[in-house]
């Protein structure tokens, strides 16, 4: 096997992305979770830049810039402010204990890799083999949203899923059309702002950010 250098580089960044997804899955502290999210965004920016440079797709530079501003700088900053305002730096509570989560994670990764294998046969892009990793990181962020009890970490899981989708788009088709990308970016931005407002309301009503309380229908 002797892949071209850029493909090797993209593969390495894809592997880092998966590594970070797992690190987030097993992370207990909200602050580190946010930092890992920012780091994952940065790896995403790097991989987009490498794809853009190696395939001469100039619109990917814009998406990289958008990702950098939105996911590496702005959203983590908002998150940091939010947890300061809400004063929630407690350890994240998980529904399933962490070793079990990791085992489920591995099963998900195997599933995703097998799922993506026939699809990537048809893709003609240089990044086709990373489709499996993109699928895996989407599934892992799903798992994170399911296993976490607190609203903040669920939102981070949601944003991570967006990272995975973006990476899938880059690896399968060299990115989505600019209009779609801008739309999604705006959606994520507005979504996280609304989530921010929601956090305050949830806490005001239930004096906690535990989603568990939302399951009761009666008023206390």
């Amino acid at each position, binding site marked *: 096997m002797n892949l071209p250098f850029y493909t*090797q580089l993209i593969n*390495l960044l*894809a592997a*880092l992305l998966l590594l970070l997804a*797992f690190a987030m899955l097993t992370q207990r502290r909200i602050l580190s979770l946010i930092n890992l999210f920012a780091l994952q965004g940065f790896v995403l920016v790097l991989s987009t830049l490498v794809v853009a440079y190696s395939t001469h797709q100039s619109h990917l530079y814009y998406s990289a810039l958008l990702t950098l501003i939105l996911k590496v700088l702005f959203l983590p900053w908002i998150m940091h402010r939010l947890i300061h305002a809400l004063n929630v730096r407690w350890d994240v509570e998980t529904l399933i204990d*962490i070793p079990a989560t*990791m085992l489920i994670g*591995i099963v998900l990764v*195997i599933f995703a*890799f097998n799922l993506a294998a026939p699809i990537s046969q048809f893709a003609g892009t240089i990044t086709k083999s990373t489709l499996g990793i993109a699928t895996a990181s989407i599934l892992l962020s799903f798992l994170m949203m399911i296993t976490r009890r607190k609203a903040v970490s669920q939102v981070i899981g949601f944003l991570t899923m967006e990272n995975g989708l973006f990476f899938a788009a880059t690896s399968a088709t060299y990115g989505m059309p600019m209009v779609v990308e801008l739309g999604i970016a705006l959606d994520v931005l507005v979504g996280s702002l609304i989530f921010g407002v929601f956090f305050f309301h949830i806490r005001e009503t239930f004096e906690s950010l535990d989603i568990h309380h939302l399951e009761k229908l009666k008023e206390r």
Partner: protein
Amino acid sequence: MNIASGIVFQVLQSVLVVLIAPLMLGWVNQCRAWLQNKSGAGIWQPYKVLNKLFHKDAVLAHNASHLFRSTPYILFGCMWLAVGIVPVLATSLPFAPAADVIALVGLFALARVFVSLAAMDIGTSFGTLGARREMMIGFLAEPAMLMTLFTASLISHSTSLATIVETLGHRELVIYPSMAFAAVAFLMVLLAENARIPIDNPSTHLELTMIHEAMILEYSARHLALVEWASSLKLTAYITIGIAIFVPWGIAQAGDWTGMLIAIAVLVVKLTLAGAGLALLETVSAKMRIFRAPEFLGTAFMLATLGMLTHFLLER
């Protein structure tokens, strides 16, 4: 290759590694002291300790069996053999066919079994406690270690360390994403197996936390010296295995004298950096509860497995 020069290389490597192993430990301790704003005992301290211990009279418990007495020698022998067969300075040495990664893990396991048995031999509660904890750490660390090594051997299609070094170090540079996973997993196993800080604290004698120290509590004088020397050899062995797999550049081929000189210089640089890095890692992290250890090593195993999976996805 000339057989005589091969044997000279082999002897040179084995002796050199045994002699520098305490220095390695001294360097790590010195770095730790510096990072904690202390002046430190100096990098030669382990030699002074060994010298002191060899000149003392050994004290044995009345009910100590032959097992207890012979274990330090077996332990030291295992570790010396391990560092002897790892391609530290050169590949294709006479012992190289023995440097199979599975055999290496087995060698470490043999040493572990004897130390644990010896710890239980006297019948003190601390020894038994340490032995049980050591076996727990061991059975969690071994699969992770094997998976890490299998990731490397999948790339080079061989479980022989010498072949792995040849494949990774002496051909054109290829980026292997799976090795990134394997490297993190290996680092975690290294910390756990050598009783370093997130799992065990090498400088503690606090009853509730010690693992390795609890097992060797009954040893004194020359026995203790051999055990201490063996644990510094084990640390060196793990670091050199790590170097051989993840940063193999600079390891010479046997019979090449100028390459050998370069290999020694490169090895010194790598060991210095590795020791400083280990000290830094130990300073910034806190020791975890013993019941968190399965989680830590489970993560290592998971990362190694992921490494293998990514190998199949990305590198075929």
